[in-house]
C-alpha cells in the first residue's frame, strides 16, 4: 500500500515536471488546443480517482487494523446489510460520475475533428510502415515528417493504404485510426514551434514499433520557405560531380521501381525522394538522415526494419557513396 501511495506521488511530480525535452512524446505536456482539452479532462478524472482511491483504501486499512481477530472474543454480530448505507454508496459514485460525464460529453463534441474555415488541410495516408502527407491546397507532399505552421488550425483527414494504423502525436492531440476505405478527421492548432514526436499506435504488423513520425511546427515564414522548397524541382547535380554519378546509378538501379524523384523516376511503392535531403530522419523517422544511416539503409533495409519491403541493394564502394551523395543533395 505505501508503495502505491509513493507511486501516486511520483505521478504527481511527473505531471508537473514532464514538460520540456525529456519526454518528447508525453501526453502530459500539451502544445495544442486539442491536446490541452484532453489533458484538462484527464486531470479532472485523475483527481476524482485519487479522492475515491484514498477513501476506499483508508476504509480498507482501518477495517484491517481495527477488526483483527482476538483470542476469546465473542462471535461478531451477524449484520446482513443496511438499506440506507446501500442507497448512499450507490448514489455517491453516481454523483461523482455526473461531474466526470458532463465535461466528457462537452470535450467529445469540442474535439470531434471539425476544423474552422481557413484551416490548412493535410491528408495523412498510412503505409506499412511509413507515413505519407499530402497538402491538397499547397500541392505538395511530405513523408514521415509533417511540417505545419504555428497558430494555424490544421484539418487532418486520414486513411490507410493497407492495414489499420493510428496517427498519434501526444503533445499535439489524441490518436485517431487510419482505415482503408474510410476517412477519419482530427483538427488542432499548435501553440508553439518545435519538433514533436509521434508514432503509430495501432498494431500494424512486423515493424509496428518502427513506424514513427515527427511533426515540425514552424513560424509562418519558415514554413513558407519549406513549402517553396518542396514545390521546386529536385536539385540537378553539377556536371561531372559525384552526385551526377549517383543520379546515373540511381536511374539504372532497382530504386526507380519503387521511388519517385520528379523527372527521374516514378515508382509508387515507397516514399517519394525528390527532397529527401531536406529531411531530418529516414526510414519512418527511425534514423537520423546521415551518410552512415543512408549507407546502412540502402545496403540492408530489412535488417534495420523487420518486414520492410525494400530489398538489400547490390551497391558497393564508390557506387554506394555516389548514390548517398546524390540523395543528400536533394534538398
Amino acid at each position, binding site marked *: 500500500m505505501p508503495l502505491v501511495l509513493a507511486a501516486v506521488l511520483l505521478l504527481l511530480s511527473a505531471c508537473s515536471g514532464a514538460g520540456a525535452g525529456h519526454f518528447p512524446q508525453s501526453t502530459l505536456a500539451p502544445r495544442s488546443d486539442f491536446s490541452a482539452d484532453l489533458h484538462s479532462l484527464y486531470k479532472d478524472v485523475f483527481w476524482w480517482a485519487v479522492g475515491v482511491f484514498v477513501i476506499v483504501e483508508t476504509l480498507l486499512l482501518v477495517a484491517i487494523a481495527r477488526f483483527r481477530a482476538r483470542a476469546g472474543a465473542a462471535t461478531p454480530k451477524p449484520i446482513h446489510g443496511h438499506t440506507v448505507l446501500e442507497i448512499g454508496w450507490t448514489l455517491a459514485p453516481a454523483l461523482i460520475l455526473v461531474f466526470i460525464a458532463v465535461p466528457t460529453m462537452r470535450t467529445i*463534441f469540442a474535439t470531434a475533428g471539425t476544423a474552422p474555415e481557413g484551416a490548412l488541410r493535410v491528408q495523412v495516408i498510412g503505409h506499412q510502415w511509413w507515413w505519407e502527407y499530402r497538402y491538397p491546397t499547397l500541392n505538395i507532399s511530405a513523408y514521415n515528417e509533417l511540417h505545419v505552421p504555428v497558430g494555424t488550425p490544421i484539418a487532418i483527414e486520414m486513411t490507410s493504404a493497407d492495414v489499420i494504423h493510428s496517427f498519434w502525436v501526444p503533445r499535439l492531440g489524441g490518436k485517431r485510426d487510419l482505415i482503408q476505405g474510410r476517412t477519419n478527421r482530427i483538427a488542432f492548432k499548435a501553440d508553439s514551434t518545435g519538433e514533436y514526436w509521434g508514432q503509430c499506435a495501432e498494431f500494424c504488423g512486423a515493424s509496428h514499433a*518502427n513506424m514513427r513520425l515527427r511533426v515540425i511546427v514552424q513560424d509562418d515564414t519558415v514554413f513558407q520557405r519549406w513549402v517553396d522548397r518542396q514545390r521546386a524541382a529536385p536539385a540537378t547535380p553539377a556536371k561531372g560531380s559525384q552526385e551526377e554519378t549517383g543520379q546515373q546509378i540511381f536511374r539504372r538501379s532497382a530504386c526507380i521501381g519503387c521511388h519517385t524523384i520528379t523527372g527521374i523516376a516514378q515508382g509508387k511503392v515507397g516514399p517519394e525522394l525528390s527532397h529527401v535531403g531536406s529531411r531530418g530522419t529516414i526510414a519512418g523517422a527511425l534514423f537520423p538522415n546521415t551518410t552512415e544511416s543512408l549507407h546502412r539503409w540502402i545496403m540492408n533495409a530489412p535488417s534495420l526494419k523487420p518486414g520492410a519491403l525494400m530489398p538489400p541493394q547490390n551497391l558497393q564502394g564508390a557506387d554506394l557513396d555516389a548514390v548517398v551523395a546524390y540523395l543528400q543533395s536533394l534538398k
Partner: protein
Amino acid sequence: MKSWLTTTDHKRIGLLYFWTAFIFFLVGGLEAVIIRAQLIKPDGGLGVSAETFNQLFTMHGTTMVFLALMPLSAAFFNFIIPLQIGARDVAFPRLNAFSYWVFLLGGLFINASFIAGPLFGADRLSVAPDAGWFGYANLTSRQFSPGPNVDFWLLGLQILGIASLAAGFNFIVTILNMRAPGMRMLRLPPFTWMTLITQFLVITAFPVITVALVLLMFDRFFGTHFFVPQGGGDPILWQHLFWMFGHPEVYILILPAMGIVSEVLPTFSRKPLFGYTVVVYSGVVIAFLGWSVWSHHMFSSGLGPIADSVFAGTTMLIAIPTGVKIFNWIGTLWGGQLRFTTSMLFALGFIAMFIIGGLSGVSHASAPSDLQQTDTYYVVAHIHYVLFGGTILGLFAGMYYWWPKMTGRMLSEGLGKTHFWLTMIGMNLAFFPMHFSGLLGMPRRIYTYSSGLGVTTFNQVSTVGAFLIGLATLVFFYNLVRTRWRPITASNNPWEGATLEWAIPSPPPVYNFTIIPTVANRLPLWHTERHAPMDPLPLQPPAPIHVPGGSWWPMITAFGLPIMAIGAISRTLPVVLIGALVVIVGIYRWAFEPFEM
C-alpha cells in the same frame, strides 16, 4: 490412468481443469517474462526479433485469457458448484468431460504453432499467432498475414469456444435444476451466483466471437471479403463483433473472482456477507451493462461524437455496481473478527488492487481522455490491475481457500504468505510504472522503443517486477507440489466456512453427500441469531448411491475437433472429413451408450 481418461466425476474434471490451466498459466507467464526481458533495454532490447515478439505478446494474451484464467475459474465451477448447491454431480457429467477434453486439445493445438514451423517450410518460432489476441482485421487477411499463424489462432479459438459453450449450458442447468431441497435462488452462495451470471455471459458472448471467426475463416479460406475493404468489406465490423464478445469476456473473467472474494471475506471475518442481495443484483447489473459498452474499446476508430458519448456514458454506469460491491465487501469486514490467512490476504489484496484498475478504467470511459491512453502502456497497466490484481489475486484466494477441500491437504501458510507478499510487490513494481510509460507516450505491442522517449527506467522497474511475479509463482507451485510429499491432512471444515461444501469430508467421497441435505438458510453451517447450524450428515450413506460410470466417448468426440482443424490448416479436405466423422460417430455412440455401467 484409464479412470482419469474416462472420468465423468465433476471433482476429477475440476482437478484436471486446474492442473491443465495452471500449466498454461506458467506458459503464459514465461511468455510475459521474455517480453519484459526484451523491454529492459531501449533501441533493440536484448535482441528478440520483431516477429518473435509479436508472437509472444499475441500468445501471452490468448493463453492468459482463454487457457489460464477462464479454465482456472472453470476448475472451481467444476469442483465447488455441485458441492455448494448440494448435488451429486453436474447436470450432464459426460458433457462436462467433453468440455475438458476440448479445452485441453484446443489449447494444445494453438500452442503447437510454436513448434510447427518446419511442417510449413518455415523456421521454428515463426508460425505462432502474431496478430494480437484481438486479431484486428484487415491485418489478419490473407494479403497481410499469408502464413498459417492466424489460422492457428482462429481455429484454436473456435475449438475453445465449443468447450466454453458446452460448459456454460451445463453449469446453467446444474445451478438451476440440481439444487438441494430448500436451496432457493437467494440462498445460493455468492460464488455460485456469480458463476451462474458468468455462464449466461458465456452462452451469449461466445456465439458472437464464433460468428466473427467463421467470417474471418471464410475470408481467409474461401476468398470472401467480410473484412476486406477493397472487396467492399469493413475492418470496423470485426472490431464491433470482437468487442461485443470481448467486453462481456472481461466480466466472464472477473465475476468468478468476485464470487470467490464474496466467500472468503465472510468466512475469515466470521460475519455474513454484507448486503448479500445487493451484491447478487449488482453482479446481474454488471452483466447487463457489460453488454452495452463494447465500443469503448474503439474510441480512436472514429465512431463520431454521438456514439462516443453513448458508450462513454454506459461505461461510466458500470462503475456504480462495481463500487457497490467494493463497499459491501468493506461492510463485511467492518465489525468482524478478521483472521489473516493467506486466502484472506489475497482477497484483501484483490480489493486493494482491483480498485486501482477500476479507477484507471474511468479515465478510459472518458472518451477524449482515452484518446491519449488507448493502445498505450497505460491500458496495459489498467488491464493488469483488473485481470492480475483482480482475477488472479481472486483465483489465488480461491486456491488457498478450497485446496484443502479439493485434495484433503492443507497448503503451507508460511509459503503462502511469502507467495502473497512477493506477488503484491512484484505486481505493483511491474504494472504501476506502466501508467507512466503510457502517459509519457509509449505505445503497447512494440518490440522496442526509442531511448529518446525517456521511459527506460520505468520499463526496467516493470521488468524487475515481472521477474518477482515469476518467482512468487514458483513459490506457489512448490507449495502445491509439497502437499504431495508432506501432507497435512485437512478436516471437513478447516476454515469454519458456512456453506455446504464444508459439511462433507475433504476430499469429498465420489457421491459427495451421504444424504442430500435440506437447506433452511444461507449459512447452513453457522450458528447465527436466527438459526442453529444444520445437523451433521451421516458418515455412511444409508442406502447405496448410484454413481455414473466413466465413458470414452466424450474424449473421442473431442479428438475429432483438432483433427478437423489440422485438416483445415494443412488444406487437406480428407482429414477434415475424418475429423467430422470422428465427431459424428462419437456423438452417436455417446448418445446410445447404456446409462448403467
